[in-house]
């Protein structure tokens, strides 16, 4: 039979066994220090996050976004700030390396693309409406809706990780999973949106302040 892996011909035969062991060793390692939560732990986490979300009137935070496309050498990095005011005003503003802001307010998505302003009525667009609600919810982490997602819970070294898999096939065409990392106090530290291709967008929050007064003027286009 022809060797289906001709590149292996250049590897000396006596190296095959150690390489085999190395593979076995690598695959038997747990992925990071991540373990699945039991039902009690999962419901405690839900309770904690819901309580934090309920008590959250405002959030302001910096963020760094990593857009990963498999064929690129490097992730595309952008940075900006986020402002949230309960119940559902969200301003998501990129400042580096370009200037672009989206504001979700009163069922409308307002865009300011480097001075060029436009808006989109979300009322009629199911996908955008869902995205809007999700982004607002994901900032607080309160996405524990079993009708919308298949949810699984994991413990990590410095916090908790929850996977949300959208059930709506139309929505799953855009995003196949959200992975949200929570701090030990139940605040969102990281959101990862994974596309069906495996490419993903990872957003890491920093300098987060909560319940500090945010003037309405922040939420203008």
């Amino acid at each position, binding site marked *: 039979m022809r060797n289906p892996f001709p590149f292996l011909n250049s590897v000396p035969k006596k190296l095959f066994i150690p390489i085999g062991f190395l593979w076995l060793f690598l695959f038997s390692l747990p992925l990071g220090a991540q373990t699945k939560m039991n039902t009690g732990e999962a419901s405690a986490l839900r309770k904690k996050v819901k309580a934090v979300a309920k008590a959250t009137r405002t959030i302001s935070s910096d963020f760094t976004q990593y*857009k990963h496309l498999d*064929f*690129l050498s490097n992730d595309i990095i*952008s940075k900006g700030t986020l402002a949230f005011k309960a119940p559902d005003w969200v301003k*998501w503003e990129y400042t580096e390396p370009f200037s672009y802001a*989206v504001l979700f307010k009163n069922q409308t998505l307002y865009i300011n693309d480097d001075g060029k302003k436009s808006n989109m009525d979300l009322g009629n667009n199911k996908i955008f409406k869902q995205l809007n609600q999700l982004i607002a919810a994901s900032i607080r982490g309160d996405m524990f809706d079993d009708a919308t997602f298949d949810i699984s819970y994991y413990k990590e070294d410095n916090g908790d990780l929850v996977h949300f898999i959208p059930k709506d096939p139309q929505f799953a065409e*855009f995003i196949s999973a959200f992975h949200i990392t929570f701090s030990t106090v139940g605040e969102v530290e990281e959101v990862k949106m994974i*596309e069906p291709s495996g490419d*993903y*967008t990872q957003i890491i929050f920093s300098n987060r302040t909560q319940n500090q007064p945010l003037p309405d003027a922040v939420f203008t286009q």
Partner: protein
Amino acid sequence: MRFLLSSLFLLLVGCASYPKKNGYVASKVQTTVVCNPYFSNPSIDYVYKSNIEVFDRSFGGILVIKKLGQDHHRIAFTTEMGNTLFDFSLKGDNLTINRIIKELDRKILVSVLKRDFLALTTESIQSIENFSKASKMLKKASILGKNHYYVFENDRLLQIIRAKNGKKKVVFLFSGISNNIAKKIDIQHHNFKLKISLKAI
């Protein structure tokens, strides 16, 4: 009679080729290899903040181009927030759709984008005719059966013009050029309302 003559004159001018209409004269050297260096380095991720104006709508996003091999590029367009709107592989003249959202999956749009991206990323092509005017060189080449004129000034590629019957159909403008990277690229369609502006980030 005078009317007839002037009509004939107009007709002749109307049918003149793009170089003639624009005062270029044919060069002695008829064919050369035309080089477009702007997407030719496989170790660079070419990332552009983009604005697309189509009819009266305008939307933004991030355009990413990566050279994967000889005559082989991957081209993806995502929203600023990271959702992929389309992802194409362009190998030779063949375009493969790796992903496209339903709203953009229109045969005519994909075919316009294929022509534009092929003109944008073709790295080297044999010219059919060459022309010159002062410090400018004009090199005519054929991409997907359409005439494209490459405009060079002091050996730097500044424009690619797709023309038919002497008229501009699509213009690719390159500016802010350094180290074989065009910081700004504008693609203007003259036959319908489509304008794509790219800014390197």
